[in-house]
């Protein structure tokens, strides 16, 4: 049951990043609870179906949110979170994220909105490199556990042992880049932009309003939850029983939020065509990690 905490807590993460970013930039900013207020406001508004759209446009937000909810159920909270009816496989998680991307991009085609399609095309292009990097980062995390079971991978990453392995550091670097791509944060994408021409993740959301938009914004927050929790579990220090590792997980996620805010404050958005080169650096590091692990065992 605790695995479903993410459904409620996920909007806190982008809220916390925005709050920390405002503080770092010397502004007061909104509170970390602002995403909840936005969701409540959207829930009360009516939806808009642009002329000519059909069932794909209307179902897509629900499907995207459902995919992310399933992903939340698959991601374990600490190594002690037990059995899930949906399994705990890392690659199933990738499939669900891909289905969410498909639904959002197909909805963009249904609206025939050039800006939505521009965002969708860019997002899917980045996903090509992002998926390759993600699978390599997951491979590095799977090496000690010899399994793609996320709970086993979390257990294998516990304690001080992994930190003496170069493979762990390589994996952490690769996964950090994956976090930037999946959460749509600078330098890959700018979540604060409202200029149609520069939007990536926000692009396919352009036509939506009301509860549809609430689903999609919740899904964006849930994507933060999935990658930040995984990042903290697989690549940040944690040990001990359920209580201790839960507390360390919360600390790790908070640290990652602070890191995202810091990167977003210090780093300007990158030219989109340069991003694949950045991700390729992560891929090379991941392959080096595989070599060092296999040669060392």
């Amino acid at each position: 049951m605790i695995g479903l905490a993410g459904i409620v807590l996920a909007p806190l993460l982008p809220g916390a990043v925005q709050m920390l970013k405002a503080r770092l930039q010397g502004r007061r900013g909104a509170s970390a609870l602002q995403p909840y207020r936005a969701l409540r406001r959207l829930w009360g508004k009516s939806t808009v179906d642009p002329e000519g759209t059909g069932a794909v446009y209307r179902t897509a937000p629900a499907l995207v949110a459902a995919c992310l909810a399933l992903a939340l159920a698959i991601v374990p909270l600490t190594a002690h979170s037990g059995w899930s009816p949906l399994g705990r496989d890392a690659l199933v998680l990738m499939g669900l994220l891909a289905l969410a991307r498909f639904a959002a991009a197909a909805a963009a085609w249904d609206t025939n909105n050039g800006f939505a399609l521009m965002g969708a095309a860019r997002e899917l292009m980045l996903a090509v490199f992002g998926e390759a990097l993600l699978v390599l980062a997951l491979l590095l995390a799977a090496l000690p556990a010899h399994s793609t079971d996320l709970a086993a991978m979390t257990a294998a990453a516990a304690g001080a042992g992994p930190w003496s392995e170069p493979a762990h550091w390589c994996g952490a670097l690769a996964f950090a880049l994956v976090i930037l791509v999946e959460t749509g944060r600078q330098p890959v994408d700018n979540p604060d932009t409202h200029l149609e021409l520069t939007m990536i993740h926000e692009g396919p959301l352009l036509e939506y309003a009301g509860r549809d938009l609430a689903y999609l914004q919740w899904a964006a927050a849930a994507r933060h939850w999935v990658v930040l929790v995984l990042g903290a579990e697989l690549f940040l220090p944690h040990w001990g029983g359920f209580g201790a590792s839960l507390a360390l997980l919360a600390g790790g996620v908070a640290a990652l939020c602070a890191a995202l805010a810091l990167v977003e404050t210090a780093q300007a958005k990158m030219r989109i065509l340069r991003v694949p080169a950045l991700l390729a650096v992560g891929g090379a590091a991941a392959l080096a990690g595989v070599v060092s692990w296999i040669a060392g065992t």
Partner: protein
Amino acid sequence: MGVIALAGAAIVAAGAALSVWSARGGLALQAVGIALLGVAGAAVLISGDVLGSAFSAEISPAFGLDPLSGFFLALLAVTAIPALVFAHAYLRTSAAPIAALGGAFLLALAGVVTARDVSTFLAAWELMTLLPAAAILVARRDAPVRSAVQVYLAITHVGGAGVWIAMLALAGGGPAALIAVAALIGFGTKAGLVPLHSWLPRAHPVAPAHLSALMSGMMIKVALYGLIRVELEWLGATPGWLGYALLALGLLSSLGGVLWALVQHELKRLLAYHSIENVGIVVLGLGASLVLARTGQATWSAIAFGAALLHIANHALFKVLLFLGAGAFERAAGALELDRMGGLLRRMPWTGGAFLVGAMAIAGLPPLNGFASEWLTLQSLLHVALDRPLGAAIAGAIALAGLAATAALALLCFVKVVGLVLLGPPRTDRAAAATEVAPAMRAGMVALAALCVIAGLVPGLLLPELARLAPGGATLTRHPGLDLPGTGSLPTLAVAAALVALTGALVRARGARKAAPAPTWTCGQPVTPALNWTSAGFTKPLRLVLESVLRPERELEVVRDAGLVREIRYSAHVPSLVDRHLLDPAVRAGLRGAALARRLQTGNVRTYAAYLLALVIGLLALARTGALG
């Protein structure tokens, strides 16, 4: 079971003959016969019996049926019956010869997978190559089609020489390395592995829809059957390099196929390139299986083999579906160019819905069948990368990243196809007036879409049967989902049920309350057709990023009149690098060689007499020295 199979084959033959008089009756009879063949195949697959002869090097014809042949026969039936039902309503012009040739083509396919001696195998193999070429030429005779068929026959015969060499060397007890290389080239050409694929995107799109479907769905699968049979079984000891060679070819084919598919703007051509991609995924699974067998992981080796066979089955299902859908759209909207369709999901809900299922399945999305087999292949490659030796681990990691990128590229490509064909506004008047196709055509596609869903829900029922066929066969427990050691398990039924239930609940919670309809936001401009996105536009970011790989070519022509720019013409295309750097030089070298050889033919009788005399003297000299034995 042998009797049923023979009866089935006889009925298919009778159906092919009957087609000459009555195309529709012939097609129905062919469907009955192929169903019997499929039943026999499925029964053999489940029971594990071996009927008929084993492999022999004799000249006398020998046929046999074992679980591997049974799997391919059952798959042939499952895909051919919907295709025949579709053809029943689809075929209009020259229906009789096409139906007859199609029936013979089915028999040839069944012949290849049941042949147990070299001569029968080669005979069925050649018929399988020639019959669709004949059917294409019956259907259409314009110059581009003739040229496509010529390229098809030329490349598959030059490459197909590899099959002849491999089979004859096998019969004569030739060296194993020669057989392995020759079989890889021969069967690889027919399966469409990069860089031997150039014929495939030319030949598959020009055939009538149901034959395109069977060529892409079954013919290249039968080539993979040949590869598996010869390399993994008849060869005896499989050479150690083969696993790595298959991984490299599989990676090249999957990435190359999908990248070239992305830059195609014609639906059937795009689907043909995706066949190359999917053959690549199958070959990655086979390569992983061989490497895992050598590193001593018998269970995962068998799972990887099962993953490859499962992907063969899944790809046959959704590729036949997609080609039939393309035929239906061509009939309804009058075009195959992606930019000339649009909005067909609303105009053709049955065809469009089935096509959407097929597109999502080939893009590897849960909970459909493509995801199950791609997940298994990814897991197999990941398990190659988990263990020593270092070379295997690096190869596995690179292939793993490549397959993940392939899946994401396929997603990008099929979002584009779905968006341009099914969604948005109609792009032409023909597309705006499109109507749903005949019920028989719909039935074939809907049945295949249902099979894609079912195969995605219960892949775990089939996987143990397929993993058992691996050379080092393993026994897996049978339950609907995929619960394998070393994974977090994929409970397909639970994932699908949760996805459907949750999406339904969220759609209900969304309610139907909505504001007045609004036009799409275009910064306040009126929405005009000129603002429609195109196939080329959607893939532009990727083309820019991969410019060094794809080498797109652009032409910009500015028409000036008295110093004023009147018109700017812009055209861009992505050339096929394999055609340019491999095929074209090979063709030029071949033509030069032919020109040299032609000098021997002077037309002068005395020269020919001199040749004969030289030959006789040469033979006599050889006989004298004892070189002829």
